[in-house]
């Protein structure tokens, strides 16, 4: 059923990584991405890999889950790797067959690219595996809050995100119900050509939209009744608090980033 779809990828267990301040986790992820793309040396990749493995270990997320975040990308990875292999013509020719030539440069570029993307996916999915969507929203709101000065609607964006998260299960359940109800009236949802199929969606989409608008209107009234008046003067039940762990984490990140930049300068 539709409502069985899990939202986000949050993996609710308890670990050091789960307990870190979500704002710091976002910063760590960004630092990690900079580290990963800081240079072209093998050492950059080694350092990044060590960093990811460490985080993976601390998060207690099973490796299987990380594999799951890479798997959908595999075809793209393989495809671009092949293109790289065939199109890059620097270095010596390693292998040739008729018009196909594979150069050394092609091989290293392909390996680098695959390693980078895999590390990027595994590393950044650790953020979503260890942080609930609501905490993530809070953290984004907190990190973007300086933008309020240039009148960027940070609070409104965060509120919209959390309301969306709140209503997705409700609307999925409703979609299920509407589909069943229209099937009961003999709606043919899975036959005919494209035009018929699109038309067949109307009995589902129209009620769904009508219902979403009705819910939005009622929710707005209910929010006003609970004294909602935007982000101004609002306090929060949950305070994001940085602890010792977060600062240690930040230290570790900076050391790795520094090391990654240094090896680049030394080697190349």
């Amino acid at each position, binding site marked *: 059923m539709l409502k069985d779809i899990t939202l986000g990828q949050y993996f609710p267990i308890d670990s050091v990584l789960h307990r870190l301040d979500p704002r710091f986790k976002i910063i760590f992820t960004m630092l990690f991405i900079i580290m990963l793309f800081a240079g072209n040396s093998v050492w950059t990749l080694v350092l990044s890999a060590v960093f990811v493995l460490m985080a993976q270990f601390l998060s207690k997320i099973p490796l299987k889950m990380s594999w799951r975040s890479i798997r959908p990308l595999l075809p793209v990875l393989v495809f671009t790797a092949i293109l790289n292999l065939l199109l890059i013509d620097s270095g010596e020719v390693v292998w040739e067959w008729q018009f196909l030539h594979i150069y050394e440069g092609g091989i290293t570029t392909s390996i680098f690219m695959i390693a980078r993307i895999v590390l990027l996916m595994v590393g950044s999915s650790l953020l979503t595996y260890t942080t609930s969507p609501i905490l993530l929203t809070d953290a984004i709101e907190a990190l973007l809050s300086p933008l309020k000065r240039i009148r960027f609607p940070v609070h409104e964006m965060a509120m919209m995100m959390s309301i969306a998260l*709140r209503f997705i*299960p409700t609307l999925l359940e409703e979609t299920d119900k509407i589909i069943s109800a229209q099937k009961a009236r003999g709606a043919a949802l899975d036959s005919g050509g494209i035009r018929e199929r699109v038309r067949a969606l109307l009995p589902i989409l129209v009620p769904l939209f009508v219902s979403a608008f009705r819910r939005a209107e009622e*929710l707005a009234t209910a929010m006003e009744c*609970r004294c909602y*008046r935007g982000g101004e003067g609002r306090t929060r039940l949950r305070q994001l608090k940085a602890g010792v762990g977060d600062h240690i984490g930040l230290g570790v990140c900076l050391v790795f980033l520094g090391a990654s930049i240094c090896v680049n300068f030394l080697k190349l």
Partner: protein
Amino acid sequence: MEHMIEAKHITFRYPVDEGQPAGETVLKDISLHIEKGSFVAVLGHNGSGKSTFAKHINAILVPEEGKMFVEGIDTSDESRLFDIRQKAGMVFQDPDNQIVATVVEEDVAFAPENLGVPPAEIRSRVDNALRTVNMYDYRSHAPSQLSGGQKQRVAIAGVIAMQPDLIVLDEPTAMLDPQGREEVLEAIRRLNREKGITVVLITHYMEEAALADRVVVMDSGVVVLDDTPHKVFAQVEKMRSLGLDVPQVTELVYELRKEGFSLPAEIISETECLDALAALLEIKPI
């Protein structure tokens, strides 16, 4: 004694563009006051104006003519809007469309957060509110994991956390199963009895109205009956003509009285009916 709510000659009509039949007067010259700490049920069929009246209590709507006062504050005074909304909480029919957050306790915290309450106090308000409606154990659940009755109790907790003096509930049980209805009514009664919160319950279920101290019956925008539940339900003919039910036992007693048996007219509960019938049956000579 100060009135919680005071309506003075309220008249209201929906603007034409809001999908309502043009120009139809929904409330006609309603004057009413509700005492602090009371539990008032407003009964009436769909379109009787009862929900429109409810929306006047916390200034979602303001009267076209006449005045509405909540704890002495004129609801048409826009500068006091949030004072009114904090004092008069509102619970609606569909619990799904009142819950804002993805976690129960986060949702209950919504109103205090809006009011700028310090975090430590929000925590204690949230915990208290959830305990009052018996939902404390579910504080970290997602709303989508809850039953209708549980969701509606979370919605009530979300209003209690504002620490209002009055709660208006607009058909809060209409979408619930019997068990959910009982849970919600139990929570409402506890608010009124234990916390001393004034309750205005809009409903068309007579069993629910029977729990109140006072029943106001509305029809076509006017108050037609306003008395204790016993006195209101005893008027079986009148209630029927208004398209409303009376409790089955009240109807039974009414029918038996028509047959000439001497039973008290004002019977609304099963126990009262049982006692009256037992008395009647025992007095009879063998």
